[in-house]
């Protein structure tokens, strides 16, 4: 199959998938719908991380900071102005994370690769401990509970247990966020980020300002993570200090590697596969399912080192080369 054919097929599958997802509220029960929502929101978070890690080659262990800031930004706005202000809460949450990423990014991108990892990990630790200690603001480990967004579809009202119409809003936001990231990685900026990932010195010799590029990637990734965090708060109706934990940053790294770093769609798929696997295995062996999930991860690392999407692309490339040689 030609490259254009593969793209057309991918596009068609994407549209079909989107149509199927749009009718999901009428087909799935509230638990299944909530499960899908979780995948979308964390998938958007993973896609934003992929811009930084998979495209720009910067390994951050503090991406949870921006998810947490987005979530708390939206939560505080909702508690202050009521659930009707959800568009403002969503925007403010995303901007809070984006601005914080722009500020920390200006410092972080000046460090070397090891310094960058340490600095971002420390930022997650500080944010987590800070959120735990300021219970008056964050609710600490217990967190803050929010009212559901006042959304209705026909007679169907959105609730925290039964998202219903909120699902459609979240789907729209995730699709828009994902589309924006996709446009970005396909643009000259995306190409520049890949140059940076592959060979920083060479990228400089081509005229690229690598610090500006890294900062931009950090800020955009932070903005994307914060948008996902704000959406999480509004749909989940609850936020807690645990959202800042570096474990959340480790999770997003695993999902991204699982699906395929540097593919954008891979991290979304990785998140979905990981969540589904966890759900399935926890039913099979409730006490030991983390071991099974770990083994599945080892299998991916061993047999698909580029992740699911990266591995499939590699396979298609090899097939194409084989056809071209014949």
């Amino acid at each position, binding site marked *: 199959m030609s*490259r254009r054919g593969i793209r057309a097929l991918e596009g068609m599958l994407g549209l079909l998938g989107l149509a199927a997802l749009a009718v999901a509220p009428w087909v799935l029960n509230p638990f299944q719908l909530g499960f899908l929502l979780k995948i979308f929101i964390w998938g958007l978070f993973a896609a934003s991380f992929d811009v930084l890690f998979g495209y720009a080659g910067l390994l951050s262990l503090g991406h949870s900071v921006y998810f947490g800031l987005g979530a708390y930004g939206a939560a505080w706005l909702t508690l202050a102005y009521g659930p009707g202000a959800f568009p403002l809460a969503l925007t403010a949450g995303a901007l809070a994370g984006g601005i914080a990423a722009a500020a920390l990014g200006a410092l972080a991108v000046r460090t070397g690769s090891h310094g960058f990892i340490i600095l971002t990990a420390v930022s997650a630790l500080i944010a987590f401990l800070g959120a735990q200690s300021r219970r008056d603001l964050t609710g600490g480990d217990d967190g803050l509970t929010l009212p559901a967004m006042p959304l209705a579809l026909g007679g169907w009202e959105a609730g925290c247990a039964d998202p219903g119409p909120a699902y459609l809003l979240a789907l729209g936001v995730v699709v828009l966020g994902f589309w924006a990231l996709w*446009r*970005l990685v396909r*643009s*000259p*900026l995306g*190409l*520049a980020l*890949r*140059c940076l*990932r*592959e*060979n920083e*010195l*060479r*990228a*400089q*010799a*081509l*005229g*690229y*300002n*690598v610090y500006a*590029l890294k900062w*931009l990637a950090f800020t955009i990734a932070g903005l994307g993570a914060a948008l996902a965090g704000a959406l999480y708060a509004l749909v989940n109706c609850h936020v807690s200090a645990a959202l800042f934990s570096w474990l959340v940053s480790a999770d997003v790294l695993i999902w991204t590697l699982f699906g395929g770093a*540097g593919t954008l769609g891979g991290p979304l798929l990785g998140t979905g596969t990981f969540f589904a696997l966890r759900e399935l295995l926890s039913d099979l062996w409730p006490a030991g399912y983390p071991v099974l999930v770990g083994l599945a991860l080892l299998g991916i690392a061993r047999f698909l080192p580029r992740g699911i999407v990266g591995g499939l692309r590699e396979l298609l490339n090899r097939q194409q080369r084989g056809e071209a040689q014949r």
Partner: protein
Amino acid sequence: MTTALAARGVRKAFAGFRAVDGVDLALAEGEWVALIGPNGAGKTTLLNLLGGQLRPDAGAVYLGGEEITHWPAARRARAGLARTFQVPALFPELTVREHVVAARLRGRWALRFPPDAEGVEELLERCRLLERASRRAGELSHGDRRLLELAVALALEPRVLLLDEPAAGLSPAEVEGLLALLGDLRRERPSLAVLVVEHDMDVVFELADRVVVMHRGRVLAEGLPADIQRDPEVQAVYLGARGP
């Protein structure tokens, strides 16, 4: 004649070792200069000082009369100073075409690609890489990587080009192809100034209008290729038995 690139009293030491020790060098517009010398003479260090990969401890570098000593490599590239590397320094996961497109953007970002695909195809064809345009750089042969290095440098549309051992590791047929390519370039871009570091004396004497010989971080001699070939001091330190 206008000076395209100049170094004045440039010095660079590493842990007390003077790799480049007060070098003066100037390239006129359209001039092709070969920089030769034994291993460890400081040729690549000098190229790194000119290209902005290293900052000199002392001295100054000028591009078209403007001092660029403290400019980072990226700014020098945008100003028209392109270079190739001794060991091909490419982006292994990017395709050949993506390399040339990325270079043509010259550090500019936008959300849309400029519509100059024809220029990219033309350059790939000229560098004999069009057939492999969709291949990843990591999958190319050594000879093709050298060609891609050159294509990337040319895509920057430079006014000064620094070539670091462009013929290293190439077969005689590939060297012939490279010389033909550089010959075409010279005809088509008469104002382009080129500084080439090279060990292959056939390449040096074929390409260069002038030869500069470095030894222990200093300029030992410079002159016309024929004069350099006859210079007994140069023969003693570098050409040795291979001399005329």
